[in-house]
């Protein structure tokens, strides 16, 4: 079964991901890179705060991991509809309501740290629904690595690709 998803556009292709892992591991015995689509609750935050130099407004993007509820601010991104097989998708565990609370907390913490002030920010959150990020699983019978299709960042996986 397949269904269309809003996927964050990335530049790292399956070939790029494989090459990247091969370069670092000096290994030729890699399996072909497998795509996996990972869900996030997306929010757009409009924040205002009174500062010494007047009222400041900030626009931020925030993504909340729909599997385990971790939040992070994000660079602006674009999405496009893409059809993915159900076997390539992770199923979200976190409700939009829970994600909303996490997003508020994440944005507030981030602003305080970045603007170097301790303040209760006025944050208006606009939910943008689920967006999906494509990851590549690259590896061999010895190890496997997760590669982010948007920036090429890597993380080891415990399970083997082979």
């Amino acid at each position, binding site marked *: 079964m397949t269904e269309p998803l809003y996927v964050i556009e990335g530049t790292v292709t399956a070939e790029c991901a494989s090459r990247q*892992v091969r370069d*670092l*591991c000096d290994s030729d015995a890699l399996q072909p890179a497998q795509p*996996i689509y*990972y869900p996030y609750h997306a929010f757009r935050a409009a924040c205002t*705060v*009174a*500062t*010494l*130099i*007047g009222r*400041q*407004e*900030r626009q*931020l993007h925030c993504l909340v*991991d729909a*599997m*385990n509820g*971790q939040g*992070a*601010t994000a*660079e602006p991104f674009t999405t496009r509809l893409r059809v993915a097989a159900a*076997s390539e998708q*992770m199923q979200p565990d976190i409700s939009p309501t829970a994600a909303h609370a996490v997003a*508020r*907390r994440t944005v*507030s*913490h*981030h602003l*305080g*740290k*970045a*603007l*170097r*002030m*301790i*303040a*209760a920010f006025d944050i208006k959150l606009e939910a943008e629904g689920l967006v999906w990020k494509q*990851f590549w*699983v690259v590896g061999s019978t010895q*190890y496997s*690595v*997760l590669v*982010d299709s948007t920036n090429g*960042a*890597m*993380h*080891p*996986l*415990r*399970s083997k690709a082979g």
Partner: protein
Amino acid sequence: MSSTVIVFLLLYYVVVLGIGYWAMRRGAGEDLEGFLLGGRKVGPMATALTLQSTSMSGYMFLGAGGLGYLQGYWAMWFAAGDIGGGVLNLSIIGRRMRKLSQMMGALTSIEYLEKRYPSAAVRLFAGILTVFLLGFYVLAQLIAGGKGMALVTGIPYPLALAIAVGIVLVYTFMGGYLAVAYTDFFQSIIMLVGVMWIVIASLSELGGLTAANDAIAAVDPTLLSVWGRDLGFQGQWGVVAGALLIFSIGYMGWPHVVTRHMAMSQPATARKAGVYATVWNLFFVPAPYLVGILAILILPGLEDPEMAIFEVAGLLLPAAVTGLVMAAIMAAIMSTADSLLLQTGSIASRDLYERFINPQASEKQMVLVSRALVLVIAVIGYLVALIEPPSVFGIVIFATSVLGSAFLPAYVCAVWWRKANTPGALASMIVGASVAFLWEYLGLAASTQLAPMLTGVVSSTVAMIAVSLLTAKIAPVPADILQIMDEAARVGPIPPQLLAASDGAMGSEAAAIDIALSKRRD
């Protein structure tokens, strides 16, 4: 001081705030947002400068000058160690700590300790101790700000202190940094040029260094010796060692300073940062001590020796320049206080309150806890600074000795000694902090002729080694930590098998995908 000084001081602040306001109005806020929020990668120059200036503004402009004024060239023992503090810190733990923290996915220096020495007790003790001692650094900045404000404006000290505390609070609660972010670099340059100008003006006033030293010898020849006024420290090598060590190896034990290593854009940034640190320190570190020494001649009988640099500046610099330099110095002191308060508030709310007291705390509660703590520190600081103000020098030496003694072996062994384990680290922190604290509190330095920093570091090191070895079997260092320590020792890119959450990202995704993949296989 003259009205011209005050006019230029005010002019400076008006211009700085004006630039901030103008930049925001023009919509530069979006750029600044990227500048502030975009996970700014910290290059070698910024690493070197922030390493030195993170908590030292008040000390350099008041404490160092005061020591030079009181003890003559003995003060140079502190400068002699401090010049190498940056490069020593960067060369010994810089690269490895940057790499290790990336592999462990640690974002703060307290979290780093907890991940290297897995135990909630490590985080709890390190967090409490750091909050307590950073409070002392804040106190030093408040006193420095109050004294400077009183001198420049001529208003009474209690009111000047209240204004200084008020400015710091407004700064912390209302985004003062936002207003001055555009002028940060400009401010550093004014400060550096100003300090060098004071040195040159002092030397010129006294007819050069040789003539000045001859004149000091005529006042009291012991001021030229390495043993202090009236040879008060003669033969006290334990005290000399403390003076040399406190700002050389001491840096490696400051959680709020070593955190800069973790923000370096590359592990190899430590190389260039080391060079910048040495060059900057060669000029900047001895200068305040030297001005203090020269002030013995320029301003004999000074009531408050810690005001030596400000007083010399007021006397020798053109009024307009004094106004600008004082403004830059005061702004740096306020900025340092603000930065320390933010770190203290953050550790108290995130590392302690949310972690150990109320894991479900709302954002409002967190802000409340941070603000309440900052207010408590400010009020206590104001009262202490008003009723019986200790010397800035004394406060900084106390806080540095205890922090350095508590954390130095923990941070150094974290990257260099595979056998350093959790009980060893805990014992080292507790013993080091206790010995240095008691040594200071009971005044044992005078009777034993050993500096608190020396006894603190030696005892915490012995505790680390002894307890780690004794408990090696019951609390072995986890295999994954040993593996990443070996990798941190090796020079080269981190292999993907060991790369943890780079910048804290992807760790949670990887865990969820791992679970999903293994379920599918089953």
